């Protein structure tokens, strides 16, 4: 109720007096209550809020008569779901990190090797004696000893966000290999804080202390101390192009002076080309650099690897539905193009899933169970049952009676089916690699339940509406392969398999063999096919035992024909796999527990669109407020409407400049006169006839209207939809947004 009274209070405006706190720049609103310490759900006030948590939550009747046990269940459930989210997300997150680290391993090793070599080179200039080294000024001997070894790490990615983690990992990797490492970013190289900023950053990271007067000699004496020397000192700057050029130059000049005392090796992330340093730094600085080049994996590569681990192999059991996958793909392609944003989108999807799906906590249980096999899941089967009956897919399939056993069976069945699905997707991906098909595209198609049902149901109907299969001769093939009937990536892949040269086919079968090793039924089929081909004298031959019986002569022509036959068989195999096993998760019972499908929720949480939304709020406010008075008006402006809304609607009729006088008059017309004339009036000046009220009340009304006008203008200014009058045009405000 507090909010109601607060809102009412703020509405009445009778008390313009603001509270003390409103004018404090900041204040402590409240401190954590002591209830925090006991984790057990006891307070009813706390649980009450959590009741109507999910849209698909239990029966309405239960809600209307608040039952304490039910509430406690609810709260317990929420607690479990929070835990489950943490489990699942930390699993996904660590998997992603592992994958990315794996992709970078080679480059990291290369860099480490180079660091060691550079360090040896610096050492070979001669190490300073104790007295020399403890002096607080640099040693300068000759030009070569002033060289700063610099590794340019090409990120092949304009978006530096994706590489923040990479450089962090690189730091950890080098540290674990015995280097001193400091990670700096462009923020440390700002013109404002100057060279002191980056030095302080260095000192903070190496010495773990803050110095107000940063001086490199502190670093030098630190390096001389105890066991610090004899290890290279690596400084990583993750986004070199965004640094302030002059500060970076000073930094490099300074390091080069001191390089004999402190063997510093620089690593700089470069997003564009190797020319970048040349654009940023003057030549007298460049000559101190001794550069080497390293190249990181491309974003597309990383994307595929992440999708494979998280969404196809499903490290955590969490998965997404077809629409969500398509949305994620489009978001990646159109919105942002960074892996970071993709991962964030996935995290939001995951959080939304756990906050909405009451049964999702089972996922956490299963994950734990997987970790410590044999240990019992800590959930009450009755609770599970209560919720399970709500699951639509479960009801639809009417799998046996609802008891704990069938549920467990359901889970294992779901897992088995899904394992098959992911195996087939990976097989397809292997085959599609030579066609440069992206896994994300393939995933979207493989998750499409419509395609699955059309594949399954009308196996024999040839669909004429083909995309990408224009040749008439293809029709017979299409009839043969269900997958070809619809175009798309799977169709492309099957066709590709048919045309694969023998050697590549052989390799493909090898990789299939590896991929399918966990799924016996598929594995055997692949094995069978593999036995038809053998590798001999550097050439591929169909297995003689099988085929020679049919063909007595072994002319090259025949050979080709035979290998084509193997191609056909491979294509038939993958086609059959697609038909039998590529069952999207949304077509499997109980999938609601594991699969997030609510694409609208995800989109709203992920992409705020203030520019459009705030305008729509103003123009269609009655849809949100749902008041009786304004919704029927159609396009006509009513005096009962929200003032700012009236003003903004009126503003739509103006050009980029709005004359305040005109605007005020049309506002006044709308406010004073009921609808009948409404909008048409707005552009004309008010009719003098209508001002025949008594002078006194008119004046009062006038003041109030002017005040309302002022407030509406202020509110539009706060939303940024208006720019205030300039000196040149004191009577006009400027519109900022045009169209939604």
């Amino acid at each position, binding site marked *: 109720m507090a909010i109601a009274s607060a809102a009412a209070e*703020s509405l009445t405006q009778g008390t*313009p007096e603001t509270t003390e706190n409103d004018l404090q720049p900041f204040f402590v609103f409240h401190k954590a209550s002591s209830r925090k310490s006991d984790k057990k759900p006891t307070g009813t006030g706390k649980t009450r809020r959590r009741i109507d948590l999910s849209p698909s939550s239990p029966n309405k009747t239960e809600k209307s008569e608040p039952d304490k046990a039910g509430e406690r269940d609810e709260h317990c459930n929420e607690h479990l779901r929070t835990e489950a989210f943490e489990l699942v997300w930390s699993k996904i997150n660590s998997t992603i990190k592992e994958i990315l680290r794996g992709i970078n391993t080679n480059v990291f090793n290369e860099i480490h090797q180079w660091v060691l070599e550079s360090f040896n080179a610096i050492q070979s200039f001669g190490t300073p004696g104790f007295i020399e080294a403890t002096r607080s000024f640099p040693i300068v001997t000759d030009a070569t000893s002033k060289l700063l070894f610099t590794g340019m790490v090409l990120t092949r990615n304009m978006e530096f966000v994706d590489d923040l983690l990479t450089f962090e990992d690189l730091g950890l990797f080098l540290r674990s290999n015995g280097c001193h490492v400091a990670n700096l970013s462009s923020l440390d190289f700002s013109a404002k804080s100057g060279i002191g900023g980056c030095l302080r950053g260095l000192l903070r990271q190496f010495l773990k202390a803050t110095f107000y007067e940063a001086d490199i000699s502190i670093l030098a004496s630190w390096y001389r101390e105890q066991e610090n020397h004899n290890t290279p000192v690596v400084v990583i700057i993750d986004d070199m192009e965004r640094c302030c050029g002059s500060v970076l130059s000073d930094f490099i000049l300074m390091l080069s002076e001191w390089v004999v005392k402190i063997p510093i090796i620089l690593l700089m992330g470069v997003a564009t080309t190797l020319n970048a340093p040349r654009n940023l730094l003057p030549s007298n600085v460049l000559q101190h650099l001794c550069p080497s080049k390293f190249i990181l994996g491309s974003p597309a590569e990383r994307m595929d690897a992440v999708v494979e681990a998280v969404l196809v192999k499903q490290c955590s059991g969490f998965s997404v539905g077809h629409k969500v996958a398509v949305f994620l793909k489009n978001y990646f392609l159109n919105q942002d193009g960074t892996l970071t944003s993709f991962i*964030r989108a996935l995290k939001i999807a995951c959080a939304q899933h756990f906050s909405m799906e009451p049964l999702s906590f089972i996922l956490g249980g299963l994950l734990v169970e997987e970790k410590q096999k044999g240990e019992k899941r800590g959930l009450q089967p009755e609770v599970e049952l209560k919720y399970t009956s709500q699951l639509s897919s479960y009801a639809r399939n009417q799998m046996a009676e609802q008891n704990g056993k069938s549920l467990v069976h359901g889970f294992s069945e779901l897992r088995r089916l899904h394992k098959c699905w992911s195996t087939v997707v990976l097989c397809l991906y292997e085959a599609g690699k030579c066609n440069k098909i992206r896994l994300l595209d393939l995933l979207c198609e493989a998750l499409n339940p419509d395609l699955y049902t059309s594949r399954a149901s009308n196996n024999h109907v040839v669909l004429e509406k083909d995309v990408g299969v224009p040749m008439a001769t293809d029709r017979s093939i299409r009839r043969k392969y269900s997958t070809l009937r619809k175009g798309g990536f799977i169709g492309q892949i099957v066709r590709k398999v048919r045309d694969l040269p023998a050697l590549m086919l052989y390799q493909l079968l090898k990789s299939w063999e590896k991929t399918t090793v966990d799924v016996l039924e598929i594995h055997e089929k692949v094995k069978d096919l593999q036995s038809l081909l053998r590798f001999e004298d550097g050439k591929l031959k169909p297995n003689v035992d099988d085929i020679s019986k049919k063909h007595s002569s072994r002319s090259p022509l025949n050979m080709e024909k035979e290998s084509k036959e193997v191609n056909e068989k491979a294509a038939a195999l993958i086609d059959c796999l697609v038909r039998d096993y590529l069952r999207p998760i949304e077509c499997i019972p109980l999938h609601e527990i594991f699969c997030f499908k609510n694409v609208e929720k995800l989109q709203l949480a992920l992409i705020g669109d203030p520019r459009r939304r705030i305008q729509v709020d103003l123009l269609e406010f009655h849809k949100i407020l749902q008041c009786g008075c304004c919704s029927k008006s159609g396009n006509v402006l009513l005096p009962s409407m929200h003032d700012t809304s009236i003003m903004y609607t009126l503003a739509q009729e103006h050009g980029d400049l709005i004359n305040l006088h005109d605007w005020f008059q049309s506002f006044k017309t709308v406010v004073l006169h009921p609808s009948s004339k409404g909008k048409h009036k707005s552009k004309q000046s008010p009719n003098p006839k209508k001002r025949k009220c008594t002078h006194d009340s008119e004046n009062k009304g006038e003041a109030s209207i002017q*005040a309302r006008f002022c407030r509406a203008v202020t509110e539009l200014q706060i*939303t940024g939809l208006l720019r205030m*009058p300039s000196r040149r045009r*004191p009577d006009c405000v400027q519109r900022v947004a045009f169209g939604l």
Partner: protein
Amino acid sequence: MEINNGVEDELEEEEFGFSRNYFLAKELGGSGKKSTRKLSDIGLVDEQELRAAASNIEPKHEKEIVALMNSYKSLYPKWVFELRCGFGLLMYGFGSKKSLIEDFASTALTEYSVVVINGYLQTINVKQVVISLAEVLADQLRTKRANTSGNLSKQPFNSRSMDDLLAFLNGSQTQDKDCFICIVVHNIDGPGLRDPETQQYLSQIAACSCIRIIASIDHVNSALLWDKKMVHTQFNWCWYHVPTFAPYRVEGMFFPMILAHGSTAQTAKTAAIVLQSLTPNAQSVFRVLAEHQLSHPDEEGMPINDLYTICRERFLVSSQVTLNSHLTEFKDHELVKTRRHSDGQDCLYIPLTAEALVKLLAEISQ
């Protein structure tokens, strides 16, 4: 493919539509008979009357707005869940979201400490905010394990550097993931927070492991304040569209009323707020000027040299440069203006009436 094309078409159409609208609007402004009416033709009422009327505007749709606010209550558990998951909440939509967020904080976040930042104010010292955040956190940790405070209070927070403080907020003093402080930032796009440096600090604060952020924005272009690093890895926003249609009562206080005479006139109240955020020396400089204006009501203003001499005598400034920096600050907030004296030199005056000035002086001397 089809989907792709569809989306592209849509995008293109959107972009095209946008530019078309812009040019249509331009054209409309140019071709149509340009209205040259003056604001003064309206017959403006007296400013005092206007302000009185402004504080008495009859609210519309009161009932519906309260119902709308109440309808957001069902989202509270979800918001708490997302805060726990490590997201920040960003509220947008038309209407003041101040009472909504504060209601959320007072009912659903009772287990966590909450610090509120009023971003709609003109000046906010982020360092001070971080210090008090650190104090709250230290407090919380201390009560948690009463005896093992050990290394916590080795140095008072207000003498530590920003990096140290951020490191403390990001620290792993506690394994408990549920131990965090919520910051509520009203108008994170507000005038006092809009500069890039402050936004950088805010994002760094938001990224700390012991901090969760709940913020509101009102400006349609607020998203331009942040780069991808801030959005994806630091703030980690979950957007919520929660229009309230509640009046921007406090938020609008600092905007001039467009129909008030000389629309930039400040009330004593807003001036006092600005002044209180300045250093004592700056306040004293302002006082010198104000007292001069009160004692010489007929003069056009105070020559800068006179002001400098007096301020030096009273050890308020040490050089012309420091005085100028104070004056720039005053001018930026329109506390002080310059005009040409009849004898030709520039002089300073405060654009307030004598009564307002007296009231203002009384207020800042408290």
